[in-house]
């Protein structure tokens, strides 16, 4: 169960090698979390992520999960909830793609969309249903500022995050009053493996900062969290900027 400050005792991470998710898990293990499920494609990286969290004293198990194979989601995630209550599901998988290549290879662009959006719709609904049945729990969805307004530089990724963001908001409204809390997290540019080598945009942040914001959001039972918080203002201005202006902005 969560405590009064929203600190969960059990955690399921979809996208078990995500740096943001692992930074969040480390923070939560330092508080109350004792059980962690890492869902992801079986790989040495997933195993080393698991052993890293084990070293902090958590009981960590891995489960094979492929975002692209939505037909398998029910059979992969069902047993996790069968083992006991999950207080927090962190939906953290996603790919950035390569905008230049993906524009020329529609098949590759579709993979980005299928991973980030379709895969999240399928696994998100399965988790939401399970959380609703247990009458409590939080679903934290890692969206992105890129989904708030399409940018020339990454609109394929951005559009998939826009779909995910809208889905998560709607799901949160659907689950209002069921004891289940859905929180949409919109980080800006996060310095991580995913963005290595890319030019930084202003207000860049780190996985640790996102983890901190998630912990605070859980305590406040927030519905939307921006990281850094100042992005909320910046993006509300940017969202209303005329296309002709937005197109020329150096972000």
């Amino acid at each position, binding site marked *: *169960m*969560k*405590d*009064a*400050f*929203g*600190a969960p*005792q059990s955690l399921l991470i979809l996208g078990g090698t995500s740096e943001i998710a692992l930074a969040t898990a480390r923070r939560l293990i330092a*508080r*109350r979390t004792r059980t962690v499920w890492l869902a992801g494609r079986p790989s040495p990286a997933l195993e080393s992520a698991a052993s890293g969290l084990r070293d902090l004293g958590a009981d960590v198990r891995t489960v094979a999960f492929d975002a692209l194979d939505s037909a398998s989601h029910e059979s992969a995630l069902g047993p996790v909830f069968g083992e006991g*209550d999950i207080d927090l599901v962190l939906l953290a998988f996603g790919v950035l793609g390569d905008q230049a290549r993906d524009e020329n290879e529609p098949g590759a662009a579709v993979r980005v969309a299928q991973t980030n959006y379709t895969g999240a719709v399928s696994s998100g609904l399965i988790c939401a249903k399970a959380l*609703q*049945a*247990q*009458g*409590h729990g939080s679903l934290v969805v890692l969206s992105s500022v890129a989904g708030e307004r399409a940018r020339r530089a990454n609109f394929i990724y951005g559009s998939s995050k826009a779909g995910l963001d809208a889905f998560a908001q709607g799901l949160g409204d659907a689950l209002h*009053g*069921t*004891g*289940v809390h859905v929180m949409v997290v919109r980080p800006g540019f996060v310095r991580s493996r995913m963005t290595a080598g890319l030019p930084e945009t202003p207000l860049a942040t780190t996985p640790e900062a996102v983890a901190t914001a998630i912990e*605070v959001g859980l*305590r*406040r*039972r927030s519905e939307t969290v921006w990281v850094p918080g100042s992005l909320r203002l910046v993006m509300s201005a940017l969202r209303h900027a005329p296309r002709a202006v937005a197109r020329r902005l150096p972000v």
Partner: protein
Amino acid sequence: MPADSTSTVASASSAVPSASASVADVAPVPVTGWGRTAPTAARLIRPRTYEEAAAAVRACGARGGIARGLGRAYGDAAQNAGGAVFDMTGLDRIHAIDADGGTVLCDAGVSLHRLMQVLLPLGWFVPVTPGTRYVTVGGAIGADLHGKNHHVSGSFTRHVRALELLTADGEIRTVGRGTPLFDATAGGMGLTGVVLAATVRLQPVETSLMSVDTERAKDLDDLMARLTATDHRYRYSVAWIDLLGRGTSLGRSVLTRGDHAPVDALPARARRDPLAFRPARFSAAPSFVPDGLLGRTTVGLFNELWYRKAPRARAGELQRISAFFHPLDGVPHWNRLYGKSGFVQYQFVVGYGQEGALRRIVHRISRRRCPSFLAVLKRFGEGDPGWLSFPVPGWTLALDLPAHLPGLGAFLDELDEEVAAAGGRVYLAKDARLRPELFAAMYPRLDEFRALRAELDPAGVFTSDLSRRLGL
């Protein structure tokens, strides 16, 4: 059936004919404790008869059920995510009052408020009342409540002769004092079964007024010295502490002690109707309040005023029962004043001889500038045999804290460590955040409790968010 329950029968059980109350069509609703933290959804079922209650228990499903009274437990003791919550306020009959011997036999859903309304005109008072009248008799047993008279009267279940308990098998047992099931149920947070009715011994009073002595203490040591020296002279005793006080005023406080006023202490007018019960009532707190209304500044101002307004010393002031025992009951829904994030109440006890730990904790709270609106210090007398009952002889401090304060969870964890190291414990009826490992260290009879539950309720029918969180 409850007519013979005044006799102390060890454990007679009686089968109840199964009723066909369906629970499947009840939609889940969000439920929280009084602190309004960590809401979870449950099917709220309101039985009106013992048979309906038994049917609800039998049909509660895989995620079990838990009894709930008026929802004054601060944390998650009366929540059950995904399962059933039995709202016991529909079982609210007072079956019998022995006006000569001073006992009452009533349903568990009867509130202490109702008991006072009925009993005061007869010259009787509830033996133990917490800071609110809006708790049920069942809740008082489940939490084994204490009041300002613990040093004299012990906790609530000391005054319970016998109770009717609906157990996991759907049967109703009469549970007498001195049996393991009674001791597991007293303070057992509803996890041994649903209390349906109880016979409670009452306290005789001549009037419905309190004769109150008030004095100020300039700091914590002064306060502790005064309490130690004079507590035994008063039936009721409590101290309010300003935990925002610093330096030489650290722990400055107002002591309020009193007893039921005898008739001859009343002015002539009041003697005409000495047992009248007229609690004051103000308008309710608004339903929306932003987080942070009760912050350092407002609480600091309040504390300053509260301390200054208290007389340096005043004896024999007459106060109404509601003003002396339940000042906050006058403001319905006062818990909303803490905003959406809600609040936690932290109450712990450390034994006599552990004053050093108490001082260290008060210093830490003061140093951290925690805006605690209500901080109350009391001395406990002898404990009672309830296995998970909270009071043990020693000092108990209770404070309210807004849940949105950054880092509060980790800070309270540190206080827990200090409390546990001093052999003390925190109070389950108020808890919403204790670490399971520390809980086991604080309550040495937990294993017996678990063993009894495993035998009595192997399928875990009685389950609450509290029991899941702490692994009870």
